[in-house]
């Protein structure tokens, strides 16, 4: 038999670049998914400001209150599709090929996560743009904007990693889709849409103990020129913890799938 040269293969960084390109192609090609990820949060925001807003705050200031919550909700919508795309890679044949190639196959997850973060940033930007059109009037300086954007980015990353982990754990793309739905309720049980003190007493500890509340409180305070106190720290700790937990699931689960 003739001598065959060893295939060079790629390292983690080069492979990640290839997979980010692949996942971005997927995103751009899935026009319906991309537009839903943008249109749904915008619809929700319009619903909350124009339909519910009058009942919650007849003075019309509700838009300033609700936009941070909508931004958080929006990242959930956008990231949910990661669970399905990760699971499809595992249950379809693609992963078999990736694993038999001379490169770290887990970098395929990096592609999904990075593409999702970029998709969500785009959706968030559109939501903020529409919010400004319908009367959102933030009073933040450059520093506050950067801090708020940083928090949103951390949250998007955290939610995306959770959905990627769900994709690794679920038995089928359909199941992955179903599990993700539960996570979308989190913002409703927080101070995203109504002030904490308006919740029933037994729900207040639940709402304050979950990650969305410090996140929303921080973004709201930063954008509206109030003092966020320690809330940004709690929000960052939550996001870091979630990312670590999700990464642990990936490290534990990926080699077994």
């Amino acid at each position: 038999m003739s001598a065959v040269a060893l295939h060079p293969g790629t390292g983690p960084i080069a492979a990640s670049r290839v997979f980010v390109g692949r996942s971005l192609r997927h995103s751009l090609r899935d026009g319906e998914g991309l537009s839903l990820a943008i249109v749904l949060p915008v619809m929700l925001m319009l619903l909350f400001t124009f339909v519910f807003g009058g009942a919650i705050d007849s003075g019309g200031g509700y838009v300033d209150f609700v936009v941070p919550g909508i931004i958080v909700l929006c990242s959930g919508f956008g990231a949910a599709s990661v669970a399905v795309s990760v699971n499809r890679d595992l249950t379809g044949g693609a992963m078999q090929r990736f694993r038999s190639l001379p490169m770290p196959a887990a970098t395929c997850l990096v592609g999904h996560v990075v593409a999702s973060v970029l998709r969500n940033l785009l959706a968030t930007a559109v939501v903020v743009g529409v919010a400004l059109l319908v009367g959102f009037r933030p009073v933040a300086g450059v520093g506050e904007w950067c801090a708020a954007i940083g928090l949103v980015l951390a949250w998007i990353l955290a939610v995306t990693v959770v959905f990627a982990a769900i994709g690794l754990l679920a038995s089928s793309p359909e199941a992955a889709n179903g599990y993700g739905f539960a996570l979308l309720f989190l913002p409703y049980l927080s101070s995203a849409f109504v002030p904490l003190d308006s919740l029933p007493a037994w729900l207040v500890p639940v709402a304050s103990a979950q990650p969305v509340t410090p996140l929303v409180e921080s973004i709201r305070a930063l954008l509206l020129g109030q003092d966020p106190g320690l809330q940004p720290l709690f929000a960052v700790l939550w996001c870091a913890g979630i990312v670590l937990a999700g990464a642990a699931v990936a490290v534990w689960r990926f080699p077994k799938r």
Partner: protein
Amino acid sequence: MNPTIEITDLRQSYGGRAVLDGITLGIEGGVFALLGPNGAGKTTLVSVLSTLLRPDSGTARILGHDVVRDAATVRRLIGTTGQYASIDEALTGRENLVMVARLLGLGARRAKQRADELLGSFGLEDAADRRVGGYSGGMRRRVDLAASLVLPPAVLFLDEPTTGLDPASRSRLWADVAQLAADGCCVFMTTQMLDEAEALADRVAILQDGAIVADGTVAELTGLIGEETAVLVDRDGRPVRTLDVPSSAGGLAAALAALDPAERGLRVELRRPTLDDAFIALTRRDHRLDLTGAAA
């Protein structure tokens, strides 16, 4: 020289059931076909050899590299085509090939160039820029095979490469495999189709319940179950039973004389054993017609 593929006492079980029950095989090169019914362990064996599955015990080496301890090197030597096409349906044929080429370590320009070459040699130019999701079964397999050949592999694994293909796509794929073998690539294929093994393989092994029950060339395997046999056939040409022909001179005449009067109207045909016969005799799953008295 080391065998290209060397498997020693490989075992793998799931939930107490031995899927691979001590496989030992050495493959020098050429086209090797692993035949076996559904559930015999073919895909499990290919998964172990292509580093996708860690065996419970035993070793397997590709060109001397252990598939567990030196999986990274083995992945730099092999190409794989799974039972169902392992390609990205949302990407086009060209994008799939470019992606695999990049992951194998080719630069952007070289990857594009190689994808173009493969699209040409597999007759996929017209479909190159359509998404694979819309391809026919035969086209998918060709993209999949092309993806396994972006860089020439030392060993190509084909797991049931023609299952579900129409006859034209099947013979096209056969021609591709024959060409690869002619170019010096060692091909390890699994199949349930005996004619496929007969057409392509230099060597055939039959896997049954996780064990190799026969191993040799097609001629050797069919030889295992005897030479030509005399078969009684009815007026429609359907075999009725095998004649027991003593190997002495005049044996056939004696056998004919000993026929039951009810069988006198039947014809006698000489039948050369096929790989089908060998397979049926060796796997003993199918008793509908015992033409293989010698081996049974």
